[in-house]
């Protein structure tokens, strides 16, 4: 009996031993091993890694500006409209809502804008947090850690500029992952952007430094400041005309920029050679895709004229009233495709462009008049098309023209406007000179229309001239708001409430963070 019990316990012990050995053998830490991932703890260790991290937020700007931000800055204005032609392009009524200012809190493009802008801010925050605490001195970086951080703060300020412009009252977040941010009033967002720029501007590089192109330089930062100040009254309630002038002067006096000889030089496929552009978002048909303005604007029938392998979408046209701002003798009228269309074929012969749909079998004729916003059965040639950004023969969907954010012309305009505003809305000679510098190149030598006088350059005329010079450059919405005309009725658009000057905080965003306040009127 006793022996039996012994045997039993021995066997029991043996069995336990067997099972637990298996356990120990197989037992391992539950820490995760990564294979196709790398954690932040093991990154930022070499020069190339730090550079790749520094460059990502810049690259992300490609995703942001075109075409979501561009669309939100453009379609609610009188300069562009995505009409329905032959019943095509209705797209759930999105473009009609933009045109008529009837968008709701669930419109997808508004949500995408929020995501894009806030993600851009997040990328900058992440880089700043990871790099600030690291010692990079042994890495032989082509630019200093301080300059990298300053550039990221400027890039972040640029994203916040988009946010203050579109949504107005937004949370101010400078770290990743700290939950439940609350809405800050627009004036506070303004103050944040301003202080960030001022605190970091002296740490930036300048045009001509290695790696300057497409990145925030001191002059680019001043261009952002000038934009911020010219809109200060809208954003924060207090005008800052002198500060705007000071920033413009900094750029003008820097000597880094001169006006290009022709009005269209800043928009060429090879516009990296422009002497006028201060900050661009570099695009490339291969490496940096997403800029497809040509596809958006050209009618499909034009594909042969440009030797385009794809089929242009022909979405965006321009409202007639806006086109009529351009006189025949203004060279800038050439940014519009209008009239009967033809092209030179490979052997140099003039060939007509054959129309489609309601122009089927006829030469394509583009008319400034747009019959209907939602045209069920026609309208193929209604509305002029913008080709300001040069369309290369054989263009792909994605173009290689760099997208212009700031250029010297705008700086001259901003200074002139500030001078006029300070002067009670009347032009000073200095203002007239500034505007004429830019306008003159759009006219034949000696053309009397080439220059303004203090009498002809009214504020209203300045708005019109801004329209001519900066068409399709994401300025019109800001301009109409600043000049108090955004709510006015225009073609196929009734008067709209002042609250439409800000987009709503998208419904989905407020569902995820109920602490965010909705803008008035939504």
């Amino acid at each position: 009996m006793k022996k039996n019990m012994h045997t039993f316990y021995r066997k029991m012990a043996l069995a336990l031993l067997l099972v637990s050995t298996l356990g120990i053998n197989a037992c391992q830490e539950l820490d995760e091993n990564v294979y196709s991932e790398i954690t932040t703890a093991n990154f930022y260790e070499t020069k190339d890694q730090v550079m790749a991290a520094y460059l990502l937020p810049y690259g992300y700007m490609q995703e942001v500006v075109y075409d979501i931000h561009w669309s939100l800055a453009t379609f609610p204005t009188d300069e562009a409209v995505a009409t329905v032609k032959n019943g095509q392009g209705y797209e759930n009524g999105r473009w009609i809502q933009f045109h008529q200012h009837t968008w709701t809190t669930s419109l997808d493009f508004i949500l995408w804008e929020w995501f894009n802008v806030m993600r851009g801010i997040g990328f900058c925050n992440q880089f700043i947090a990871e790099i600030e605490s690291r010692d990079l001195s042994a890495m032989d970086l082509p630019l200093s850690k301080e300059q990298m951080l300053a550039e990221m703060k400027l890039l972040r300020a640029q994203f916040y500029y988009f946010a203050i412009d579109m949504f107005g009252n937004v949370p101010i977040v400078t770290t990743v992952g700290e939950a439940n941010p609350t809405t800050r009033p627009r004036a506070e967002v303004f103050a944040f952007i301003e202080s960030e720029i001022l605190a970091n501007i002296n740490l930036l590089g300048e045009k001509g430094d290695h790696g300057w192109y497409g990145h925030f330089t001191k002059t680019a930062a001043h261009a952002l400041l000038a934009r911020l100040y010219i809109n200060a009254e809208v954003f924060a309630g207090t005008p800052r005309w002198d500060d705007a002038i000071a920033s413009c002067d900094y750029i003008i006096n820097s000597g880094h920029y001169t006006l290009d000889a022709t009005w269209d030089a800043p928009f060429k496929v090879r516009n990296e050679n422009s002497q006028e552009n201060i900050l661009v978002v570099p695009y490339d048909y291969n490496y940096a895709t997403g800029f497809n303005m040509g596809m958006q604007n050209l009618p499909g029938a034009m594909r042969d004229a440009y030797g385009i392998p794809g089929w242009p979408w022909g979405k965006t046209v321009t409202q007639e009233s806006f086109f009529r701002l351009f006189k025949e003798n203004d060279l800038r009228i050439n940014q519009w495709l209008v009239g009967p269309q033809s092209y030179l074929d490979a052997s140099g012969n003039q060939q007509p462009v054959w129309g489609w749909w309601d122009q089927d079998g006829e030469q394509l004729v583009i008319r400034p008049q747009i019959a209907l916003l939602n045209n069920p059965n026609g309208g193929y040639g209604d509305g002029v098309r913008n080709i300001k950004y040069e369309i290369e023969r054989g263009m792909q969907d994605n173009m290689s023209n760099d997208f212009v954010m700031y250029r010297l012309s705008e700086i001259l305009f901003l200074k002139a406007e500030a001078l006029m505003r300070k002067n009670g809305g009347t032009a000073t000679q200095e203002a007239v000179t500034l505007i004429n510098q830019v306008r003159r190149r759009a006219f034949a030598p000696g053309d009397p229309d080439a220059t303004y006088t203090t009498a002809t350059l009214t504020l209203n005329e300045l708005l019109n001239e801004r329209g001519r010079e900066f068409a399709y450059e994401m300025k019109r919405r800001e301009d109409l708001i600043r000049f108090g005309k955004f709510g006015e009725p225009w073609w196929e658009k009734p008067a709209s409430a002042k609250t439409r000057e800000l987009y709503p905080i998208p419904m989905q965003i407020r569902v995820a963070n109920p602490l965010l306040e909705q803008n008035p009127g939504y």
Partner: protein
Amino acid sequence: MKKFNLKNLTLSRFLVPLLLLLAGHVAQAQGTSVRGTITDDKGDALPGVTVVLRGTAQGSISDAEGRYTLEVPSTQETLIFSYVGYARQEIAINNRSVIDVQMLTDDKTLNEVVVIGYGTQKRETVTGSIATVKSEDFIQGIIADPMTLITGKVAGLAVTRPNGSDPNATTDFSLRGAVSREGSAQPLIVIDGVPGGDLRTIAPQDIESIDVLKDGSAAAIYGSRATGGVVLVTTKRGRQGPARVAYTGYVSTDQITRRYDVLNAEQYRAVARSINREANDMGSETDWFNQLTRTPVSHGHNLAVSGGSGKTDYYAAVNLQNYQGMDLVGARRFVNGTFRLNTKALSDKLDFSIMLTNSFDNKTFADYYGFGQALNMNPTFPVTNPDGTYFEAPQIAQGSQWNPVANTRYNTNNSKEKRMLGTANLSYAFTGDLSARVSYSYAFQDFLSGSYTDNRLLYMQQSGINGQASRSQNSTTNNVLEGMLDYQKQLGSHNLNLLVGYSYQNIFNEGFGAGNNNFNTNAFLYYNLGAGAALNNLTPGFRRDGVYVNSFGNERTLLAYFGRLIYDYKEKYLLNVSFRREGASVLGADNKWGNFVGVSGGWILSNEAFINDVGFINNLKLRAGYGITGNQNSLSPYQSLATVGPFPWKQMYSFYGSPGDPNWILGYGPTINPNPSLTWETKNELNLGLDFSLFKSRISGSLDYYDRRINNLIGNYTAQLPPNIYDYIFANAGQMRNSGLELLLEARIVSQDKFRWNATFVGAQNVNKIVTVSSEQFFGAAQPITDIGLGWGQEVQRLAEGQPVGVFYGKKFAGVTDNGNWLFYNSEGQAVTSDQIGDDDYQYLGNSIPRFNLGLTNTIAIGRFDASILVRSALGFNVLNSKNIFHDNVNSFGATNLLVSAFDWVQDPNYPNTGRPEPKHRGEPTFSDYYLEKGDYMKLDNVTVGYTLPFKNLRVYATALNLAILTNYSGMDPELGINPFPGAGVEFRNYYPRTRTFTVGVSANF
């Protein structure tokens, strides 16, 4: 080793044999032998029956003539006779030396053995909520997904086929309501004891039985992943005796049940004329849907050889299934080989078994977009040009009228899938009471996919991509090692079973993929990627979209220790306690371990004297259980880690350099929103149950009530942005509650020799509610889900506090304006146009998951004929036919065709043949309750009629699946998804048509 010896056996006759069984080890006496003959219910010799001396590993197996002999230490012992498909019997020797036994087919008698996970238990003493379906009760006919076998057979387990008879689609199932906000928390599949298996590894015909652990107390032994319940699959094993050969085979075809009535050519022209649109009339009359369908023929064969002699038995089978979809290309060829062997050694103390099953799937995928496109196509377009090429009209409607037949024919999507499961089991009986078991299994999956788009497809030519091929491989290696000790003891009236164990599982997933463009021949398909010209063509302007390479690897590990005590006193009072401590690598560093406890008890009232006297009660048992289970399975690895990499959605290069000196650098940044606090999702469940058997067991069944609360719901939530970077974050948030009732009722209505009629009813009611959706990790007020194609931000359902999961949420329809625009109610109850609708005006519009699921199976045998009829019903839910939103909208005419029902057809002499089409509205395509319908349905789901031929063992049968439906739903079939992802109760725009399936089959045994 003195044992208790029960002397006082003065109980009723009913209890005598039972208590004799309980006596267990009686004082050891001189060895003697018992022999006998075992017959089946028809009196024929039954070989292969296992005879075991109770409480020991000693046993024998009946030979070809049904004879057995067994050495026993005493004639006071008890023998256990068991055989798959027959009721287990325990018979006290009672000083006899010859015991002849007639085995009765198992009609779910009390002695049924239930698989409970890491062991088995008699049905009578089970205290959890466990359902068992034996192979003879499975749905018959063509089975593409083994879960279909038990459709409508288990109360509380809802199984639906949202993609109809697509041979490559899987079923959608949920146990006791939605178990997770992700919906991906499917039941844990345990194949022959190996957790985490894939049902597609095995052939449906090799399954012997399926047990479902429904409640928390039963499932807690599996801890992690058990929240969705546990499905225990037992495959067939060999029987003692000469080799038996069994063959089953079938051939089957499908027929469309319901189709969409879109405008025909004449109606299309009428609409174009009435709304002043160009019809682009090409003069044909094409039924695009018909062009995309065929009459499929599928067939399947299973050949199994099994047998055994002495201490070894074996089962081997090969299975071939050839499925054809009713679309033009969908197909699946499934080949499976299975072998299992059980043997004993070391004086029968060592039990060794191996199982190896290997399946190969060759899948060609259907084109769901093609069916969606068929609803868009202009009916006046021809399918082909006179020269035989496909007709295309790229200039119309911005290219949206692409030819779906061309698209289906010119796209090849294929996946070759291998699934292997190998298991070795070693168990050793140290004593009659104590045994140890070690099992190791290795499961391997390898998917090799290929896709090719023919260069003749118009888009390929327009874009200059000119043929696009890609290939990818995805392999998963799954290692499971488990060891356990099992101790059984009987101390007088106390029965005790103690189990302790250890489990380790590691899953490694890896793969790679590549693609290339520009093929000057279509002959290669995806077999010669290098032949594409795009890879090395860096000419500016050359399309390189499909040129890519990628590879990946990830890993997850689970570790667990577990224990279980099963105890009963006189088989009257039952107790089951289990515990599992489990760690999962995918959770946050400080939260990897969780504890899962299950406690349940039972009281067999019918073993009490006061009930025993009630004549009509044969069995009555009360059960109560409480258990905690966990879920981490819906998490991908590495979600708690801050990882860095290129921008995940696009190859995005950043510029660094100067004008004329470009340098494009691939930027690196955060790739996810990490959440270091990720922890276990847990479910606490209370289960109360009653099992009964009345009137000589003619009526039996069970009734269960459950209340389950799922805490720390794991989900991919819309992240707060800012402060996060990406739109989604995996997080634990909120609590969901499911409560309900389940009823199982079985009636042996007629039990005569020539006429048997059994009916089984299962009914389940489920009330689902999200108690909260926010937590320390996620702060949102709700979570929008289900994009039906209207775009981001216009999701039609949400997860919201106080609402059922997947509740419809949107605008409330109020009418249309005079010019046909939408009117919706705002929060003040006024009817306003859609631009006046703000966030506060959205409303909850009804649940999308059925509240009631019912199934009734009638099994009838008359002479040599047998029949089985399953009627299934789901009630109490709303469905959305999103096709209506897109195809009742005149604004979309031209880009899409429209439904005939989108118009009122008014008599008008100008439209003599069709009537003048008056659109029912002219508003933009948007979701509102205008489009919601009641989803209630009742289906004649399965009808089988069989005939057993006069010469033995040959049966022929015919089966119809999804035969008829009773519903008011306007769409194809309201049997839609039942989990919140990708959308419960939603019929999507791109789809697979529903069919009824007819099968004839034969089964033969030699």
